[in-house]
């Protein structure tokens, strides 16, 4: 009897799954935004599509454009490394929550200097981007690198030309470590940079640094590794020079409270001996009021799937996924605010 009942349940479950898959086949989730999480999202999208039949398309167009597209409702979800504050979120009934975390690293192209060999303090990095230190053999650089033979070369500064969450986090860090940077330029996804050459996307900055000897730029670690660029050691808030590592990112992540509206956090210059000082968080943005129930549900299913199944792919691509079960429960609970045009709640928990 029990066996017959189980068999019946199995048949029904298979039928339901097949039905869900068939129904899902016509649904397409469109995301757009930050280039920072793009490699991870593209990997997750492929795996999610294989498992569910739902196609996910992600356009790596920068955080500013991601916010623009979700606001204009030309994307189902946006990704941004420029976290929006409550003042911004309420303007457009947006929900914001973190998806993935990764290190932002200064990268250099210097003859004779390998990966992780050059040491920089935050103040020196700010002075380079302020145009106050213009040569690689400057005394301030020699002071932190007494054993390195620093080249007699001008510094070629590379920054982002587009609206960029990576720039937002990088300049947030420079503002924390340099009062001159804070007073003159502040924090910005887009700025009038005092010096340097602008390149588009993490891809563009990686390429620009790769192509020109004497360059310095800042990119997500995944791009640095992909392009085989030399990363630098940074002195953290505890006063220790550290190389970029998953341990360092996790140490910074451990300091996050996620208690502000929209889970607003900028993980720079955090406490902890091992803490990597520039860590970016990629946030998803969705509208609370959705026009298409099926698209909205597929979007939330994809984002929920990332929390439950995305860790391995994230790790392979040098990101750190969120694994705080309490945080993920809070985030998924907040999805109860997402309603369709009829006022029906879209997300009713993981199926």
């Amino acid at each position: 009897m029990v066996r017959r009942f189980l068999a019946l349940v199995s048949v029904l479950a298979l039928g339901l799954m097949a039905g869900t898959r068939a129904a899902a086949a016509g649904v397409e989730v469109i995301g757009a935004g930050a280039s920072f999480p793009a490699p991870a999202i593209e990997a997750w999208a492929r795996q999610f599509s294989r498992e569910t039949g739902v196609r996910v398309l992600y356009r790596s167009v920068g955080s500013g454009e991601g916010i623009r597209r979700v606001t204009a409702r030309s994307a189902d979800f946006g990704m941004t490394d420029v976290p929006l504050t409550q003042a911004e979120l309420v303007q457009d009934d947006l929900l914001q929550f973190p998806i993935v975390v990764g290190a932002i690293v200064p990268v250099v192209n210097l003859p004779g200097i390998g990966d992780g060999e050059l040491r920089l303090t935050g103040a020196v990095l700010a002075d380079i981007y302020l145009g106050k230190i213009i040569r690689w053999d400057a005394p301030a650089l020699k002071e932190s690198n007494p054993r390195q033979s620093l080249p007699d070369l001008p510094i070629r500064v590379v920054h982002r030309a587009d609206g960029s969450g990576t720039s937002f986090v990088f300049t947030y860090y420079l503002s924390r470590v340099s009062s001159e940077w804070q007073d003159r330029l502040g924090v910005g996804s887009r700025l009038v940079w005092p010096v340097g050459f602008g390149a588009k996307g993490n891809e563009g900055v990686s390429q620009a640094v790769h192509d020109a000897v004497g360059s310095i730029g800042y990119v997500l670690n995944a791009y640095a590794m992909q392009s085989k660029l030399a990363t630098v050691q940074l002195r953290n808030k505890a006063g220790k020079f550290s190389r970029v590592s998953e341990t360092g990112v996790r140490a910074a992540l451990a300091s996050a409270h996620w208690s502000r509206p929209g889970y607003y956090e900028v993980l720079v210059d955090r406490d902890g001996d091992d803490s990597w000082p520039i860590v970016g968080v990629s946030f998803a943005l969705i509208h609370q009021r959705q026009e298409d129930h099926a698209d909205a549900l597929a979007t939330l299913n994809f984002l929920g799937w990332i929390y439950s199944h995305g860790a391995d792919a994230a790790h392979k691509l040098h990101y750190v996924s969120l694994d705080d079960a309490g945080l993920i429960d809070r985030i998924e609970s907040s999805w109860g605010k997402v309603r369709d045009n009829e006022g029906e709640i879209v997300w009713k928990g993981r199926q």
Partner: protein
Amino acid sequence: MKAAAVMLPLMASLAWVPVHVAAKGGSMQPKPNKDFRELIVKGERPEIAACLVAAIDYARRDPAYGAIRWDDDASDRAIMQESESGGRLTRRIHLAAQMRTKGSALFAGTWRSMNVSCEQPEDGTVRVSVKPVAG
């Protein structure tokens, strides 16, 4: 004048768009704001967009002024600072703009250069203050 050309669409929108953001510390209504959407869709820096919306609203409500505009590089030159005290974040934004004084039936108002500052605590309110540029 460059600024005028840049700001014509925005100024046009000022006349017709309903106000949802309270400047000077009022509470914010949870309605989608057209000014915000327009600024974001035009590619405005998201981190200063709430300040710009509040500044537009301030100009509409201020008895001495009727409109606000800024040059196309003003937002890139805007300085945003964020500080934390007692676990609470406050964002401050400083921006150069021009505000038009209210005119009479015969004469349009004149544009004056202003320094606009926004203070934005993490509860979501935006306080705007404006100061004429000396000279």
